[in-house]
C-alpha cells in the first residue's frame, strides 16, 4: 500500500534505494571474489562466438560496468575473419585460408540482471 502511494507520487523510499544499491554492490563483490568464474565465462563466450566467426582470443576484453540500476557485462571481442558458412556449424570447422584477416570491432552488451537494460 505504502509502496503504491510512493509510486503514485513518483518518489522512491530510502529502503528501496538501499535494497537496489545492496543488490548491485553484492553482484560486484561476488564477481570480484570469483575471478575464475569470469575466466570460465570469457572462455565459453569466445568458444560460442568462434563457432560463427574467427576471433582474436588474445585481445578479448570482458568488463563489468555499473549503470544506474543494473550491472552490465561489456565484452570487446575482436573479429579477425568472417569467412564462415552462413549456417552455424555445431563444431569448429577447419581453419580457413582466406584473405588477410580483417579486423572489425564489435561491441557486445548483455545485461546480467534485468532484460529491460539490454540494448
Amino acid at each position: 500500500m505504502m509502496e503504491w502511494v510512493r509510486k503514485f507520487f513518483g518518489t522512491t523510499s530510502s529502503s528501496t534505494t538501499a535494497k537496489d544499491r545492496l543488490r548491485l554492490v553484492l553482484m560486484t563483490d561476488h564477481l570480484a571474489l570469483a575471478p575464475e568464474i569470469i575466466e570460465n565465462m570469457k572462455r565459453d563466450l569466445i568458444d560460442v562466438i568462434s563457432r560463427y566467426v574467427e576471433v582474436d582470443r588474445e585481445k578479448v576484453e570482458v568488463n563489468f560496468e555499473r549503470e544506474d540500476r543494473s550491472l552490465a557485462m561489456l565484452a570487446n571481442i575482436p573479429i579477425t575473419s568472417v569467412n564462415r558458412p552462413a549456417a552455424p556449424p555445431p563444431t569448429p570447422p577447419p581453419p580457413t585460408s582466406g584473405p588477410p584477416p580483417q579486423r572489425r570491432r564489435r561491441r557486445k552488451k548483455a545485461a546480467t540482471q534485468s532484460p529491460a537494460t539490454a540494448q
Partner: protein
Amino acid sequence: MPAPKLGRAIVITSGKGGVGKTTTTANLGTALAARGARVALVDADVGLRNLDIVLGLESRVKYHVLDVLEEKVSLDEALVADKHSETLFLLAAAQTREKDEVDTEKMRALIEDLRTKFDYVLIDCPAGIELGFKNAVVGATEAIVVSTPEVSSVRDVDRVVGLLGNRFKPQLIINRLRPQLVRKGKMLSVEDVNAILHLPLLGVIADEPEIIITTNRGEPLARRHDSETANAYHAIAARVAGEDVAAPTVEAKEGFLDKLGSFFGGRRA
C-alpha cells in the same frame, strides 16, 4: 562430567562490529540454558572482552581463554558459573592480550573439549574477518550470522557467509529491526534482507530499549519471559534446539498518528 555425545558448537558472527553479536550470544545462551541445556559461552574476542559484562559476570572472571590454551589453568577452573542459571557457563576472553596470540589448533581442541562437557558451545566471534574470526570459527560445527537491516551490515554478512564456506549452513538472525521505520519505507524489511542473503531465518529481534536497559544491568533479557523481545529469544532458542516453532517476527504497533501519516503518504527520507 563427560556427556556421551558431543555437543553443538555454534559460532555467532557478522563481519561488521556493533550489530549485536555479544548481546545475541548472551541472550541465546541464557534462553538455551533456561530450557535446561548445558551451555558454555566462549568469548573469542581476545583483547576486547565484553561477553562477561553483558552477562553481569565481570567481577567473577579470574582466568580467560588464553590461560586455558596455554595450560596455566584447567578448563574447569576458567569456566565462570552464571549467577542465575546452573547450566550456563562463561569462558572469558583475555583482555590484555592480542588475537594473534591464540593458537588456532589449540582453539579447535578447546572447543572440542567443551563439546564433551556441554550441549551447546556458543562462540562469540570478534568483528572482522582476520585471525580472530578464523580462531572463532575453527572449532564450530554451525554458524549463526547476525545482521541489522542496514546496507553495511547486510553486505558484511554476505561476505562472511562466503568465507564460512560450505562447511556451514549459516542461519540468520535479523537484529535491531525498527518496525515503524520498515512500515514507512525507511528501513530494509525482513523480506528485503532475505531476498538478498537467501539464508534460513532463525528470527527477528526488534530494536527495543529493554535490551539496552538489561545490558546496562548485566541481566540478559532472556532471563525473563514477560516481554515480546525476551520471548523472541526463547523462540529462537527453541528453533536452535530443533523445535518446530515459527521464527519470531516483529510487528509495528500502529498508533493513530502513524495511521494519519500513512493516509497522507508519510514523509520520506
